[in-house]
């Protein structure tokens, strides 16, 4: 009975501690941010028009392999690649020289706060989990069932947080680079009227129709 009462007193406070941004966790996060380098994720795209996409695709894959990267998606018109962040700009320059550049973007986002927050929440949940496990040793059946229910919920949270953290860390470890070879998938021709009549006759379809 004493154990049961103890559980009733401890569980709400333990679960409250699991809420985001608890004070000790926040303090730890600040310390970590100060002592470690900023964690940056890079996302780059390159739209390239080449006469022989098959040949260029092979060359790009070879370059990426040499740079320590790997493909995550390979198709006729597109390559999705993961490459070490320090190699991204050099790779983009090399790939750009293989054809006509139609578009180029490079985006950096600071994930330091997000990663620190996920790490702190994960630590807090793990602590709660350990505390709950210790209650199991000397509790009765009803209390055990309650503790088990709480632990099951915590395991789900832990798995989700661990997954999110792994994704964030992977995004920092390797930059994402998408090389697209097909222009028609990104653009379309609109009907726009010019005040100069003959300009309205400039059109690939009209040209082919009148040939």
């Amino acid at each position, binding site marked *: 009975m004493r154990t049961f009462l103890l559980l009733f007193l401890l569980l709400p406070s333990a679960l409250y501690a699991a809420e985001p941004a608890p004070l000790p966790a926040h303090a730890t996060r600040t310390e970590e941010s100060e002592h470690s380098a900023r964690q940056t994720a890079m996302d780059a795209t390159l739209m390239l028009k080449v006469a022989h996409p098959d040949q260029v695709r092979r060359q790009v894959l070879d370059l990426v392999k040499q740079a320590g990267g790997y493909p995550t998606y390979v198709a006729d018109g597109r390559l999705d690649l993961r490459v070490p962040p320090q190699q991204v700009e050099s790779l983009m320059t090399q790939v750009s020289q293989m054809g006509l550049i*139609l578009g180029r973007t490079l985006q950096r986002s600071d994930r330091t706060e997000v990663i620190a927050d996920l790490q702190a929440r994960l630590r807090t949940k793990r602590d709660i989990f350990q505390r709950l496990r210790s209650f199991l040793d000397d509790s009765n059946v009803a209390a055990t069932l309650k503790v088990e229910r709480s632990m099951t919920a915590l395991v789900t949270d832990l798995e989700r947080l661990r997954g999110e953290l792994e994704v964030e860390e992977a995004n920092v470890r390797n930059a994402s680079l998408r090389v697209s070879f097909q222009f028609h998938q990104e*653009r379309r*021709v*609109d009907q726009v009227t*010019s005040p*100069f009549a003959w300009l309205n006759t*400039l059109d690939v379809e009209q040209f082919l129709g009148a040939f």
Partner: protein
Amino acid sequence: MRWLTLSLFFLVAACGPTYRMEAPDGLVKYDKGHGKFAWTTADGVRVKARDVKNEPKAELPFWTDATQRHLTARGYTKKAERCFTTKLGAKGCTLEWLAPRGNEDWVYAVSIFVTDDRVTLVEAAGPFARYVAIEAKLAKALETFEPGS
């Protein structure tokens, strides 16, 4: 005699300007017997010339700029621009564009020559890889182009 003069006038008017260009390697004339200035490669890159009125009357830089603005607004993406003087001294500018066409990327090129009240356009189009294969030959041939009179 009056009928003969009138007939000759209409014949000349119907024929329109006489364009001339040295045959580019890989392209053959494709006039279907009605005297059009049209060329094609075996794999379907097509080239054809036509005249439009220089209205409002303007010079080559104006029409090059207007063409560029219009095709950009339509969603074409500029591939290249090249201005040149032909062997006979005519000034021309070629604007090459990328155009999405079905499941393919095409190149659509417009070369502009301005002669008094006429603007002569030499248009060319073909799937990207096929066009790129002949673009240097076509550029060289265009330097021999004569807009005619």
